[in-house]
C-alpha cells in the first residue's frame, strides 16, 4: 500500500491495481481513483507551476473547481491540455504530464519571476503592450521580442497539432425535468419527479452519483449516507422514465430552457468500445430544471495560501473518506466557520494527527469546542495563519492572534510544524447556471454568499444551491423541487432521520488576513490581494472592469473559487458593502468544453454529399470529380497522360465535331402545378409563360424585387396546369424559397403548388451534329425528327425499356437534347445513350468542357448573374416583357440601373495568345508598376478549341460600345498583363444555325 493510502475506508477498489504515468514516472492507483487521489496517495504534492510566477502548486480541491493541478493527458499523438487532475479517472496506460514548467516541474527557471513580483502585477499586459513605447527602444520591435518569451513563460498547457482521431457525438434530448447535480437534493428531486411519472434526466459531472453524501460520514434513515445514495440510484436505474448521466457537466443554460451538457463517455477507459464516442454533447430541452449544483468551499486569503499542502478543508475530507487517502499526517485546520470542524474530525478518524484548529472567531460555540476536543486538536480561537513554510511541500506555518472585527494581528507569531493545512472560508452556492439563465445574484449577509438570482426561466433550486447546507434541508428541498418541477402541489413529508455533526452555516465575515507576503485570490491566474487593491488604486471600480484588468476569475476557474474573496477585497478597498459592488455575470461554459464535441458528427467525410444518379458510372469511367456546393460532378473524363486542359479541349472538340453527353441532373427542378401555375410564372419570370403551348419549353429570366437579375433556366409545360421549372444548380434552393415566399406571403390567392423534384429526374444533355442520329438509334415510341421534336419541343418516349422525356434545347450551341428519366433509371438510360453513341463518336464530357462551350456561346451563369448585374447589363433586355408587371419590373428602371457607364457583358480575345485569368482587371492603359484605372473584370475564361484562341467573358464599363476596340488585362497578383480585343460575348455561331440544324 502506498504511503498515504489508509488501510480501510473510502470507495476505491483496493484489489484492483491500475498503472499509469505522470511526468514519465510510473505510479499505481486503485479502481475509483482520480489522478489527483492516486498521486496524492503516492506522496506527490507538486502538481504544477502557477500561471505567472511559476510558483509550485499542489491540490487545492478535489473537484471540478481545481485551479492548480491542471494536467495534459496524452492519447497517442493527441494532447488534451488543462484538465484538472481531480477530474481525470485513472485507467491502465494513462499518460499525464504537468504544465507550465520549463524545463521540468521540480526545477523551473521561470520561478525567478516571483523575485521581481512587481513586474507582473495587475494590468501588466495592458501597461506593457498597449502603452506608448518611449526611450531608446522607441520604434523597435523590442516588445514583440519580449512578448514571445512572456507568452511562453505565462500560460496554461499547450494544445497539440495532431489530428484527433476520437469520435464525438451530439445527442438531442427532451425531458420534463432535468436535474443538475446528484447530491441528496438532486437525488431526491429526481426520485420525486420520476415517481410522479415525469421524464427525468439526472446529470452529474462526477463518475459517481451522490455528491457529498459519498463522503460526509452522515447517516440518513439509519443507513450511511453513501448507502442511501446507492439505494436511491438503484431505484432510479430501475425506472424507464429516468435517464442517468454520470460524468456529464451541464455547462450552458440557454433560452427556452435549452441546456448544453458534455458527457465524458470514454475518457476513463483505456480504449473506447467499438463505435463509442469520446465525448457526447447533449442538447437538452427541459420542461423545467432542478438546480441542485451544491456549493464550492472558498479559500481564505493569507500569505503563502498557495503552497502545496494547503488545501480546502472538505477536499481533504473527501480524499480521506471517498478515496482513502490522507493528504497529510500532521494537519492544521484554519477556518472562519463551523463546517471545517467536521473535516478535522474526519481526518482524525482516518488516522491523521490534528495539530491545531485555528479559528478567526474569538469564541467558537461549545459544540465546536467539543468537536475540537474529539479531534484531539488544540483550538486556537481568535487566531489566524499568517505565513506558510516549505518548498514543494508544506513544512510548517505561523499563527498569530487575530482580531476579526479590526482585522488586526497582534502578539508574537508562533510556529507550528505541519505537513498539511486545511482552510475554509465559507461556502459559495454554485449559481453559475442560474446566472447564465439571466438576472443578478443576490447577496446574503448571514451566509456571506451570493444566492441564486430571481427566476427568469423555468428552474427550481434545491439544497446548497439555495444556501441550504444541511442534508436534511437538502432532502426536503429536493422533494419540493421535484414536485414543483412537475407542477404537483407540494405536500408536507415525513422528515427523514439524519445523523450529522452540529454546524452553524454562518461564517465570520473574514476573507483575508493582511500580513507580509503574497496572498492569492485567484490561484490559477496568480492574482493576489495586492493586485486587486492596485487595480482599485488605478481607478478600476466596476467588478467587470476589475475582472478584465486583473484577469481574476478568468480561464477555467470562471470564478469558482476566486469570485467572492476577490469581490470582498474590492469592496473593502472601495469602502462599500459587497452587494453594492455586485458580482460578475457568469457565462457559459461552466467548465471547459471540447471543441470536438461541438463539431460532433459534422467533420471529415460526414459532411453531406449530393450525388447524381450516374455518380458511380462517372467514377468507374475515369471521371475526375469536382465538388460544386454539396454536389459532386465530373470535371473531365481524362485519358491516361492527359492534362486537364488537354482533356476538356478533346471533349469539347469531339462534341462540336460529333456529339457529347453530359450529366445535368444537378440542375434545380421545381414542379409548378395548379390552375394558377401559368399566371404565377408570368409574375415570377420577366417573360410570358401563359402563352407557352403544352409540350414546349421556354427560356426564362427572373429578377429580384430590387430589379437585379436573379436566376435563369428553361421551364417546360408538361400539361395545362403542370410546369417543370429548371434553375441553375447553385440557385435551386434560393429559387424554391423565393417561389414559396410569394405563394405564401404575397399571393395566397393563387392556386399553385411548388415542389422540389430535382432528385426525381436524372438528366443527360446530349449535343453535337450527330446527337439526333444517336437519339434516333435508341429512342422508341416517338420520332425525334425536326417536325416531331422542333427546337424547344418536348416528346415522351422510351430508351431501353424505360420512359424518358426529351426536350430539344441547347446550352452548348449544338443541336442538343436534354433526356430526363426517373432518377432510379438514370444510369440505365445513360449507358444506353453512351452505347448508342459509340458508332457516332460520342464522348462523355465534364464541367470544364461544359464551361468552355458556354463561354464560346456567351451564355451567362452565376459568375455573371452575380447579384450586381441587371438584365440589360447581360443583354437579356429582350426578355423583359412590357405587357405585364413581374417581380422586379417596378425597380429595374431606376436611374442607377440604366446608367450608361454600367458594367456590361462582353467577350475578350487574348491578342498575345496566352491564357487569361478569372478575376483579372481590364484597363485601357497598362501600368505594371502602379496598376490603376480598372474598367471591368473577367468573369470566366478558357482556351476555345472552336476559335483556337484564349477567350474570356468579362463585365466592362460601356460594354457594347467598346466592341472591336483594344484594352489590356491587368492582373498584378499573377503578373499577367497583355492586350485583348473586346468583342461580342457571342463568340461562336452567333446566328445559332448549328443548334437549329
Amino acid at each position, binding site marked *: 500500500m502506498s504511503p498515504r493510502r489508509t488501510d480501510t475506508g473510502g470507495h476505491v477498489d483496493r484489489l484492483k491495481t491500475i498503472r499509469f504515468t505522470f511526468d514519465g514516472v510510473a505510479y499505481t492507483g486503485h479502481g475509483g481513483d482520480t489522478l489527483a487521489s492516486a498521486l496524492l496517495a503516492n506522496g506527490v504534492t507538486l502538481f504544477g507551476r502557477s500561471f505567472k510566477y511559476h510558483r509550485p502548486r499542489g491540490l487545492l480541491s478535489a473537484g471540478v473547481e481545481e485551479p492548480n493541478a491542471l494536467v495534459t493527458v496524452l492519447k497517442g499523438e493527441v494532447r488534451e491540455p488543462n484538465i484538472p487532475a481531480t477530474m481525470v479517472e485513472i485507467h491502465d496506460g494513462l499518460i499525464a504530464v504537468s504544465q507550465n514548467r520549463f524545463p521540468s516541474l521540480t526545477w523551473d527557471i521561470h520561478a525567478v519571476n516571483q523575485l521581481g513580483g512587481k513586474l507582473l502585477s495587475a494590468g501588466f499586459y495592458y501597461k506593457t503592450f498597449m502603452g506608448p513605447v518611449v526611450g531608446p527602444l522607441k520604434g523597435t520591435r523590442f516588445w514583440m521580442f519580449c512578448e514571445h518569451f512572456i507568452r511562453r513563460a505565462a500560460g496554461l498547457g499547450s494544445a497539440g497539432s495532431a489530428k484527433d482521431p476520437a469520435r464525438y457525438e451530439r445527442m438531442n434530448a427532451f425531458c420534463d425535468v432535468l436535474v443538475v447535480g446528484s447530491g441528496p437534493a438532486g437525488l431526491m428531486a429526481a426520485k420525486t419527479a420520476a415517481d410522479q411519472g415525469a421524464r427525468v434526466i439526472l446529470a452529474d459531472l462526477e463518475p459517481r452519483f451522490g455528491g457529498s453524501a459519498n463522503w460526509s460520514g452522515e447517516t440518513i434513515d439509519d443507513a450511511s449516507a453513501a448507502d442511501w445514495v446507492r439505494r436511491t440510484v438503484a431505484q432510479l436505474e430501475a425506472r424507464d422514465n429516468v435517464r442517468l448521466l454520470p460524468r456529464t457537466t451541464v455547462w450552458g443554460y440557454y433560452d427556452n430552457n435549452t441546456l448544453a451538457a458534455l458527457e465524458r463517455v470514454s475518457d476513463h477507459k483505456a480504449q473506447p468500445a467499438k463505435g463509442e464516442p469520446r465525448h457526447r454533447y447533449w442538447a437538452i*430541452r427541459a420542461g423545467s430544471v432542478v438546480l441542485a449544483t451544491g456549493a464550492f468551499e472558498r479559500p481564505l486569503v493569507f500569505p503563502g495560501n498557495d503552497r502545496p499542502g494547503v488545501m480546502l478543508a472538505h477536499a481533504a475530507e473527501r480524499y480521506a473518506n471517498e478515496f482513502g487517502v490522507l493528504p497529510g499526517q500532521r494537519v492544521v485546520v484554519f477556518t472562519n466557520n463551523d463546517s471545517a470542524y467536521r473535516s478535522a474530525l474526519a481526518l482524525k478518524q482516518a488516522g491523521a494527527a490534528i495539530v491545531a484548529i485555528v479559528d478567526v472567531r474569538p469564541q467558537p460555540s461549545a459544540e465546536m469546542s467539543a468537536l475540537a476536543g474529539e479531534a484531539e486538536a488544540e483550538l486556537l480561537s481568535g487566531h489566524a495563519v499568517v505565513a506558510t513554510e516549505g518548498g514543494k511541500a508544506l513544512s510548517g506555518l505561523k499563527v498569530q492572534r487575530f482580531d476579526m472585527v479590526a482585522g488586526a494581528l497582534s502578539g508574537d507569531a508562533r510556529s507550528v510544524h505541519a505537513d498539511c493545512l486545511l482552510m475554509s472560508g465559507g461556502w459559495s452556492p454554485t449559481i453559475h447556471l442560474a446566472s447564465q439563465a439571466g438576472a443578478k445574484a443576490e447577496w446574503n449577509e448571514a451566509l456571506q454568499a451570493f444566492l441564486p438570482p430571481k427566476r427568469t426561466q423555468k428552474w427550481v433550486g434545491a439544497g446548497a444551491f439555495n444556501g441550504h447546507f444541511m442534508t436534511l434541508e437538502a432532502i426536503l428541498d429536493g422533494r419540493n423541487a421535484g414536485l414543483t418541477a412537475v407542477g404537483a402541489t407540494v405536500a408536507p413529508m415525513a422528515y427523514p432521520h439524519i445523523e450529522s455533526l452540529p454546524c452553524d452555516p454562518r461564517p465570520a465575515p473574514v476573507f483575508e488576513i493582511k500580513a507580509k507576503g503574497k496572498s492569492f485570490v485567484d490561484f490559477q491566474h496568480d492574482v493576489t490581494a495586492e493586485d486587486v487593491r492596485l487595480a482599485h488604486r488605478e481607478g478600476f471600480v466596476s467588478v467587470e472592469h476589475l475582472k478584465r484588468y486583473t484577469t481574476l476569475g478568468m480561464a477555467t476557474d470562471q470564478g469558482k473559487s476566486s469570485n467572492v474573496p476577490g469581490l470582498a477585497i474590492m469592496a473593502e478597498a472601495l469602502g462599500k458593502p459587497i452587494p453594492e459592488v455586485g458580482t460578475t455575470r457568469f457565462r457559459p461554459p461552466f467548465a471547459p468544453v471540447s471543441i470536438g464535441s461541438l463539431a460532433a458528427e459534422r467533420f471529415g467525410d460526414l459532411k453531406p454529399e449530393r450525388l447524381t444518379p450516374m455518380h458511380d458510372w462517372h467514377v468507374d469511367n475515369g471521371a475526375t470529380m469536382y465538388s460544386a456546393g454539396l454536389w459532386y460532378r465530373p470535371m473531365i473524363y481524362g485519358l491516361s497522360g492527359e492534362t486537364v486542359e488537354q482533356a476538356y479541349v478533346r471533349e469539347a472538340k469531339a462534341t462540336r465535331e460529333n456529339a457529347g453527353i453530359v450529366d445535368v441532373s444537378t440542375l434545380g427542378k421545381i414542379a409548378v402545378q395548379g390552375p394558377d401555375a401559368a399566371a404565377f410564372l408570368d409574375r415570377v419570370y420577366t417573360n410570358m409563360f401563359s402563352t407557352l403551348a403544352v409540350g414546349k419549353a421556354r427560356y426564362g429570366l427572373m429578377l429580384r424585387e430590387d430589379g437585379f437579375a436573379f436566376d435563369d433556366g428553361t421551364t417546360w409545360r408538361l400539361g395545362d396546369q403542370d410546369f417543370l421549372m429548371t434553375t441553375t444548380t447553385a440557385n435551386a434552393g434560393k429559387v424554391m424559397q423565393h417561389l414559396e415566399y410569394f405563394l*405564401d*406571403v*404575397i399571393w395566397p390567392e393563387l392556386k399553385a403548388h411548388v415542389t422540389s423534384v430535382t432528385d426525381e429526374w436524372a438528366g443527360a444533355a446530349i449535343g453535337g451534329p450527330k446527337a439526333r442520329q444517336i437519339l434516333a438509334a435508341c429512342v422508341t415510341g416517338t420520332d425525334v425528327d425536326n417536325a416531331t421534336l422542333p427546337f424547344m419541343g418536348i416528346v415522351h418516349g422510351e430508351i431501353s425499356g424505360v420512359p424518358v422525356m426529351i426536350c430539344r434545347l441547347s446550352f452548348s450551341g449544338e443541336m442538343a437534347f436534354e433526356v430526363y428519366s426517373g432518377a432510379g433509371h438514370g444510369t440505365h438510360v445513360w449507358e444506353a445513350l453512351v452505347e448508342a453513341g459509340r458508332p457516332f463518336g460520342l464522348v462523355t464530357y465534364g464541367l470544364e468542357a461544359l464551361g468552355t462551350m458556354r463561354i464560346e456561346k456567351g451564355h451567362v451563369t452565376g459568375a455573371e448573374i452575380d447579384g450586381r448585374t441587371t438584365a440589360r447589363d447581360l443583354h437579356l433586355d429582350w426578355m423583359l416583357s412590357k405587357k405585364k408587371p*413581374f417581380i422586379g419590373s417596378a425597380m429595374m428602371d431606376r436611374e442607377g440601373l440604366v446608367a450608361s457607364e454600367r458594367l456590361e457583358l462582353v467577350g475578350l480575345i487574348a491578342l498575345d495568345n496566352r491564357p487569361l485569368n478569372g478575376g483579372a482587371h481590364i484597363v485601357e492603359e497598362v501600368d505594371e508598376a502602379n496598376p490603376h484605372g480598372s474598367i471591368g473584370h473577367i468573369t470566366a475564361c478558357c482556351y476555345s478549341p472552336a476559335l483556337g484562341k484564349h477567350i474570356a467573358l468579362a463585365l466592362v464599363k460601356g460594354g457594347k460600345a467598346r466592341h472591336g476596340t483594344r484594352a489590356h488585362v491587368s492582373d498584378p497578383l499573377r503578373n499577367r498583363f497583355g492586350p485583348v480585343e473586346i468583342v461580342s460575348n457571342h463568340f461562336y455561331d452567333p446566328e445559332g444555325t448549328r443548334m437549329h440544324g
Partner: protein
Amino acid sequence: MLITCPYCGPRDVIEFTYQGDGNRERPDPASQNFEAWNAYVYDRLNPAGDHNEIWQHSGGCRVHLRVVRNTLTHEISNVAFVRGDHSSAARRKAEDKP
C-alpha cells in the same frame, strides 16, 4: 432560440429561415409609385422591442410564419401562419408538448 411552428411544434431556430420584416406592404404589382416600391424594398423598422417578422420553417413544413419577437430578449410572444387559410391545420393541443 426555439420557434413554435403551429404545425410542427417547437423547433430549434436553425430549422427556420428569416424572411424579413413582416410590416412591409407590397404595392400593387402594376403600381408605378416609386416611393412606395422603394419603401417596400428598402425601408425597415428595426425596433428595440417587439418586432413583426416573417420566418419560413424551411427545415420542416416549409410554411411561412408571422412571428412577434422581442429584439432585446429574443422572447417570442406570438407565432401564426401567414396564410389565414392554414389555421385549421394547426397542431392539436394534445401533441403540443415541448
